[in-house]
């Protein structure tokens, strides 16, 4: 339909089309994503994808994958926690339909691995993933990092625009500041940890004193920012970037001190292991093309060997940069409770 075409076009606008060679299997930008047999089988198959990342981002990814490979994807999008419940329950009942599952929280991925939702699988490009940060299990890997940075409404703040993290505590923006509740997801936790680690708990308290408005979801925050309800916020980079692309007067900032991020794990299920299409999808997502496309959407790519890819006018630091404060699974488990306590106290948040 039209909508699919629109998505494909938008995807192409983000990142120029790659070089595709299907003469012998599927080769994109020189990387062999699927051998001939696998590719033939995959074309008759469909990817059943469960995803916990943003609807818009995942739809664009799917559209890109479909144009790249000609393989169909069936997408079921749910917030991560609901997705987790679904997948675990379906798995328990032996009725899990998904072939591939992408979520936004590493701890959930660990749960999936334990419950057997994820099964061991290695893409041809696993070797390219940086050791340690991304690869903690043989059952899933970081498909990319979801980034939290900051942004402001460029229609409201016209002169002397903010430039770095310290601006969030600037009394000028008292009552105009928005933050997302720490309980909401992995990347916000990463942000909290980064902020506490880098600037100390006092930094959060200063935001609290600035009467930060707390949002329960990323999207409502970005909406509020777009409408000028709040004028400055720490926010999900990808969401805000999409909003800006859709015409919202939002400007993003990649501060000097860097940005925070948490991995979006991806893995195959038992069903997926049997599904050629799912395997191709997994391979594609770790391929140079897949990774570059993620970067162009405002994520930090997991692979560091893909060159510099801009998201629109912005350049996020690569995963191995010291400016990319990425919280891995173990750290998340270790710091989670303490960070949350500090955060709650700073913002006087009960929820």
């Amino acid at each position, binding site marked *: *339909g*039209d*909508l*699919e075409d*629109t998505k494909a076009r938008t995807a192409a606008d983000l990142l120029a089309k790659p070089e595709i060679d299907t003469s012998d299997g599927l080769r994109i930008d020189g990387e062999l994503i699927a051998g001939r047999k696998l590719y033939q089988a995959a074309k008759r198959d469909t990817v*059943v994808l469960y995803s916990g990342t*943003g*609807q*818009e981002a995942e739809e664009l990814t799917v559209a890109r994958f479909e144009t790249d490979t000609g393989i169909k994807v*069936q*997408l*079921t999008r*749910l*917030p*991560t*926690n*609901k997705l*987790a*419940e*679904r997948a*675990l*329950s*379906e*798995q*328990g*009942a*032996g009725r899990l*339909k998904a072939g591939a599952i992408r979520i936004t929280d590493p701890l*959930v991925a660990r749960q999936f691995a334990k419950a057997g939702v994820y099964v061991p699988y290695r893409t041809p490009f696993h070797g390219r993933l940086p050791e340690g940060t991304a690869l903690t299990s043989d059952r899933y890997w970081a498909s990319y990092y979801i980034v939290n940075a900051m942004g402001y*409404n460029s*229609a409201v703040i016209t002169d002397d625009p903010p430039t770095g993290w310290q601006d969030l505590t600037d009394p000028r923006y008292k009552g*105009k500041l928005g933050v997302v509740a720490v*309980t*909401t*997801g992995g990347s916000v936790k990463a942000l909290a940890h980064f902020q506490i680690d880098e600037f100390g708990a006092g930094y959060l308290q200063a935001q609290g004193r600035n009467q930060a408005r707390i*949002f*329960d*979801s990323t*999207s*409502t*925050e*970005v*909406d509020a920012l*777009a*409408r*000028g*309800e709040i004028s400055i916020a720490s926010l*999900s980079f990808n*969401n*805000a970037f*999409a*909003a*800006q*692309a*859709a*015409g*919202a*007067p939002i400007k993003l900032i990649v501060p000097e001190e860097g940005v925070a991020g948490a991995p979006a794990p991806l893995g195959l299920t038992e069903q997926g292991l049997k599904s050629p299409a799912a395997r191709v999808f997994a391979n594609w997502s770790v391929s140079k093309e897949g990774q570059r496309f993620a970067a162009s959407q405002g994520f930090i790519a997991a692979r560091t060997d893909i060159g510099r890819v801009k998201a629109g006018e912005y350049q996020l630091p690569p995963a191995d940069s010291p400016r990319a404060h990425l919280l891995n699974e173990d750290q998340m488990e270790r710091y989670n409770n303490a960070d949350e306590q500090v955060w709650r106290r700073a913002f006087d948040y*009960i*929820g």
Partner: protein
Amino acid sequence: MSTTLMKPEASAAEPQRRTTRPFRRGPGRWTRLVGLPLLAVVGFLVLVPAGFIVLAAFSEEVPRPGSIGLDLTLDNFRVLAEAGVLAAAGNSLLIAVCATVSALVIGGFLAFVTARTDIRCKGFVFLIGLMPLFLPSYVGALAWAILGSPGAGLINTGFRDLGMAGPVNIYSVPGVVMVMAMYYAPYAFLMMHSAMSMMNPDLEDAASTHGGSTWRTIRAVTLPLALPAILGSGLLIFVLIFENFAVSQVLASPGGINTLPTFVYTLMNATPSRGNEAAAVAVVLVAVVVSVTLVQRRVLAKRSFTTVSGKGVKPRTLRLGRLRTPALLAALIYFVLSIVAPLLGLLLSAIRTSPYMSSFGSLTEPGALNITSFVTAVTSDVFVKTASNSVLVSLFAALGGTVLAFLAGYVVYRTKAVARGALETVSMVPLAIPAVVLGIGLLWTWLVMPVPVYGTLWVLIIGFVAVQMPQGFRGIASAIQSTDRDLEDSAVMLGARRLRAISFVTLPLLRVAVSSTFLLLLMLSMRELTVPLFLYTTDTETLSIAIYDQFENGGALREASATALVYCLIMFVLSYLPRRLGAKKGVHGA
């Protein structure tokens, strides 16, 4: 009963009592047992999912299919003592009480003027009462955020354009109360409308000849006779508002107002999910709702509310006189606040190219407006598929729900069947369980059931029927309570089987109520979001989910607004069906 059997000497002391035992192998035992299969069906639909929740509340691990453990614990209830929970509960209570009362007032007013008076443009006022149903409360809340937020709300922008300070702040307790009240008023409206349109005016006439002014008459006779409907809808509205997450999230959280639903949401949203604790909260809520239901049953059991009797129901409408125009104006104000303004707000954000608007003047700039978002919205495959899924599922769910509610209402209020109290309570249980939690219970249930419905539209239909059982039940029950059973009995005396008598007498007399219930369930199913979230698959995605996803996407406000508008239009068109049925000539004078 059993004690009597064991202690014969005790029973000898009370010969009178012994013979009046209700459950022995006694007369009419078959008719007494009609409640049991029904209880089995409703119980299955409702109690199995609820049972999972209860188990979760007392378990250490979430009792998913395949990993149902029996490590029981009470720890989960500690969550209730967490800091701030009490304050949040207090806020929720305040909001729920105020909003329920306001919704009852709005709904009651509209029901009264359309059912019983000669208000101008009666048909239109009826629509006014109904229309907010076409707007899911989360869409309404978002629209009101667009309209009334203190910073960039359109209303405030408008005031600023005129050089005044922006006076409106929807991110406040009154704001939340207003929005909740407006979007829940249709429940009250529908239930009270059917109760009032069947009322025998002789009863009111008796009050006015005995010195009651119009207002006193309404207070002493009309309203109390509508008590089952008022209490019933009040209970529904109260609990639904108390649990409503969407409006709290959109309007209360930005204002720094903590509420219980956001708390439950956070519990569910925490990673790893704190599902056990959420279940514990749900169990407490269930206990509250069950006891409120029992109290309500007590209150209603003492009295009778029969308004349709065999001595005739003479159609008569009250003359409003000088109040005709003011009454219409009041209805129009509600119409503007609940429908016109939000829809205009949505329309504006659907056709505006930039979500930000500094002043209304900026709209005149070239390229500021276009309608491509509508084209995108309705031409997509996803839209067509989800819309047809939604319509299909809603029609079946409303039909099934109405039938089940009628059966349950009839058995509870018209028969002496055993376990009718249980049937009523069970029917009300889904009300108590927050939809997120119940959704999970339904997921578990239908995953483990050895019937191939999971992954099909059927599971959505079944889920909706279960979730909306309380709404359907209350709607029908209050109407059944207001018709004299002699009317039906006389048909039986004239040779009709009970079922025939019901279909010849009771159903037609309750037509208004039955069709309103159908309408209500239809609209609720169209709007239902949380339950399908757990049960849908790509093939069975519904429109409500598609819209929710769009709103969930920062930046897609244009498309989301456009789809929401089209969605409201679909609901409006759908609602025509049951309204046709309900509007045919009847005992009530139009």
